[in-house]
């Protein structure tokens, strides 16, 4: 579904992502791993329209989506989460999720000013759906709490739920379980597997090797912005270059 062709991003003299190409199959879990500073987050930002590419092309289902702004990509079915949280602190957990639904809700100003039935119906309908999504990962009890009072682990999962609310076909998760305990990590893994059953495609950036090896269909390994290796978890686990890169960077990655 996603074809990435020779994408490059430079920051001054530093080539953060260097002539990288790969394909992501529909309905698969495609992990991207690599040592710290390998360019994984930069790649996510390139695929989601945050950074303009210096060169290269990105295709979604055959259509060119290179450099389309983030908010418009959401309407093409691409959504992401952030490595460093981006949650609205003064909104409740449920309101954060409802934000994800906003692209489906009426924001017509006249209807809003006069509180038309449509506005209320939307709110009611998506309230139910939001609660349902939260219950998928055990967050419904926090629905009406302001985000700023909640723990990192909760907010981290909230971001995934918010992304799901946009109804994505492709979701990019940048280190979704960093800082989560084993039980929470397990819940996120389960959720990701559930998504794939619904034919959602997942790009997973993660340092948690156990999780990556467990759930990935394909793994792309990056180092210094380039593709070092690609294959099934089995192949990657036995790849000499990969072992070399990780041993050579021991102590740097999480």
């Amino acid at each position, binding site marked *: 579904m996603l074809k990435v062709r020779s994408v490059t991003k430079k920051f001054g003299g530093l080539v953060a992502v260097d002539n990288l190409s790969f394909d992501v199959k529909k309905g698969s879990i495609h992990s991207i791993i690599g040592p710290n500073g390998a360019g994984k987050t930069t790649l996510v930002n390139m695929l989601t329209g945050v950074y303009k590419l210096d060169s290269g092309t990105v295709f979604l289902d055959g259509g060119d989506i290179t450099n389309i702004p983030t*908010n*418009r990509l959401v309407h093409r079915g691409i*959504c992401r989460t*952030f490595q460093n949280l981006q949650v609205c602190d003064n909104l409740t957990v449920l*309101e954060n999720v409802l*934000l*994800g639904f*906003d692209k489906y809700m009426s924001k017509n100003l006249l209807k809003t000013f006069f*509180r038309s039935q449509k506005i209320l119906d939307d709110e009611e309908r998506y309230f139910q759906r939001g609660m349902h999504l939260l219950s998928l990962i055990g967050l419904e009890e926090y629905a009406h709490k302001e985000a700023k009072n909640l723990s990192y682990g909760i907010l981290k999962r909230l971001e995934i739920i918010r992304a799901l609310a946009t109804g994505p076909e492709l979701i990019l998760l940048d280190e979704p379980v960093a800082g989560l305990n084993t039980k929470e990590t397990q819940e996120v893994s389960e959720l990701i597997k559930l998504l794939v059953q619904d034919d959602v495609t997942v790009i997973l950036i993660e340092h948690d090797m156990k999780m990556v090896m467990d759930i990935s269909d394909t793994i792309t390994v990056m180092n210094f912005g380039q593709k070092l290796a690609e294959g099934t978890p089995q192949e990657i686990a036995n790849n000499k270059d990969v072992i070399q890169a990780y041993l050579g960077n021991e102590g740097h990655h999480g």
Partner: protein
Amino acid sequence: MNFLERINITKEILIFTAILIVVPFVLQNEFHFQLAILAMLNAMICIGLNLLMGYAGQVSLGHGAFAGLGGYIGAILTTEYQFNPLLSILSAVIFMGIFAFIISKPILKLKGHYLAMATLGIGVIINIILNVEYEITGGTDGMAVDSFILFGFELFESMHWYIVVALLLVFTLWIFDNLIKSPFGRILRSIRDSEKAADCVGINVSFYKSVVFTISVVVATIAGSLYGFFSGFISPQEASFNHSIELVVMVVLGGLGRLYGAVIGATILTVLPQLLTAFEEYETLIFGLIIIAIMIFMPKGIVSLWDKILEFKERKFAKSA
């Protein structure tokens, strides 16, 4: 959901309307009425400015100038070109709305201090133009404004003005409350908290910023033009940097991001200086000290007192239950 909830008639709006009904019986003279009307018009501007600053998180140091320019347009169209006052206000609203939407794109790309400087700059330019173009605006001396004639009925008595402005204020509060409680309002608050989060769920952040900026300028324009007709006189003073700052202080003092905070802030800052005139040369000093004290003891604004009252009642209720 009961009927009052459905049409969003809140406890707050009922109490506020009751206050507006009682106030005229307390006011003793013409001057009091003028002060009350001025406070309500400032409150209107502040409600719009609060949507921009408190909800969407975008500061503006130019709203005094926008209100003033809108006021001049309304005044000039009626006084010089004999437009019906309603038509003048409508024209001012359309002009200022388009003006605001156009300038909003470039300036709302800026953040924090830079946005403050940009809006300040536009305000200063507007003020200079009003001063310099004296053939149209009367320059520094200002200009007299024809009276407000509505369907052959001349708004002359202060009581009539009071009723018109009070109705408009309650209506403004109601539609803004509707907006705040809608998906649109949620989007504004998300932009204040994290533009990245809003962007990543598909919200066109710069468009919403432009819309909220335009709404706030339109409300300021309506209040500004009504002020001109009401006082029968308008001067560049209304569009001064001072007025812009006053409006920001009203919003912050009342309570950022709180609908009734804007109203409370506007009322107190309009009325307080008049109460302090008894202190003569110490007036400004005492005024400043009061503002500092409020900000120290109520950092979330005066409206947080209301929360304390509610909390207290709840606790009492919990105890007795």
